[in-house]
């Protein structure tokens, strides 16, 4: 009986240690999106500058890089030229979209005029689109495949390598 109890006890302790160990290597700031593999929440938002309403479904058939950002977010400033350069380089193969939330349109327009842009920037009033995507902070970027499904999420400012590696998943 003692040996059986000892083995069961050791197995339980091993299971607890394994569960705790699994959490050790994780970045506490990184939260896996439950939306990966699911259809991207649909939206139609107003574009800064043109005032045109852009519906996400318009881009069905090509991968989409959906970047949530704001002008008050310092890391977004660093990321902006990387996104712009990649959008210019990839041209019509991939659609880049910026979604700005918790911001003012005049500030967004001024930011884009100073730093340039290569793709539409949309305004998310009351942050409803950001909430539907599970955005916890900016910048956060979602990669959508040709069928409109979310295949990857990146939290934080991206490098060109980050964009390329995540785009590979979207372009499969």
């Amino acid at each position, binding site marked *: *009986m*003692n040996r059986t*109890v000892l083995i*069961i*006890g050791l197995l*339980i*302790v091993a*299971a*607890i240690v394994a*569960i705790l160990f699994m959490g050790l290597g994780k970045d506490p700031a990184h*939260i*896996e*999106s*439950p*939306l990966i593999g699911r259809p991207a*929440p*649909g*939206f*139609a*938002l*107003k574009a800064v500058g043109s005032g045109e*309403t852009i*519906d996400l479904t318009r881009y069905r058939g090509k991968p989409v890089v959906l970047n949530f950002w704001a002008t008050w977010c310092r890391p977004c400033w660093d990321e902006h030229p990387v996104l712009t350069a990649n959008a210019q380089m990839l041209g019509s193969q991939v659609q880049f979209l910026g979604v700005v*939330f*918790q911001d003012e349109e005049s500030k967004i327009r001024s930011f884009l005029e100073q730093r340039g842009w290569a793709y539409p920037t949309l305004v*998310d*009033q*009351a*942050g*409803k*689109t*950001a*909430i*539907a*995507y*599970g*955005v*916890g*902070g900016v910048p956060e970027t979602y990669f959508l495949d040709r069928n409109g499904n979310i295949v990857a999420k990146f939290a934080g400012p991206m490098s060109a390598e980050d964009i390329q590696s995540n785009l590979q998943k979207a372009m499969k």
Partner: protein
Amino acid sequence: MIALLFVLALQLKVPDAEQFVGPPKGVPITDVAVLDRRTHEVGALLRCPVCQGLSIADSPAEMAVNMRGQVRELLARGYTQEQILGYFERSYGQFVLLKPKFNGLAAAVWILPLLAVAIGLVVVVSKAKKLEARVVPPSNDDPYLARVRELVDKE
């Protein structure tokens, strides 16, 4: 001008809860006081994603304000607490729930230590019983005890 703004507003579309958790299953709340109270109660169950351990009911962050606004709107439309929590969980995962669900790894983290304690108790009780069984009654052959008894009897 108003008509133009109305048309523009109609053109905009934001993700709606109905897309993800279906139509409302409850009764729309119209009383402002009740709506305020329910918004606070449901908001207290949701974690503010940009704060350190604060619920959206307690956080002044703009993200929390937006989320509170959405909770309020959904309650007013007749969504139940379960549907609202489900909607936010769908976007943010279980992380957003301040009271995690009792399933998967979360359940194992609770159950395994309790199981370990239960097994420990079984071991302690069985050991104690064995020790009790091993207690040998004092022998009459012990000269020391015999002398003690003799002295006690004399008293």
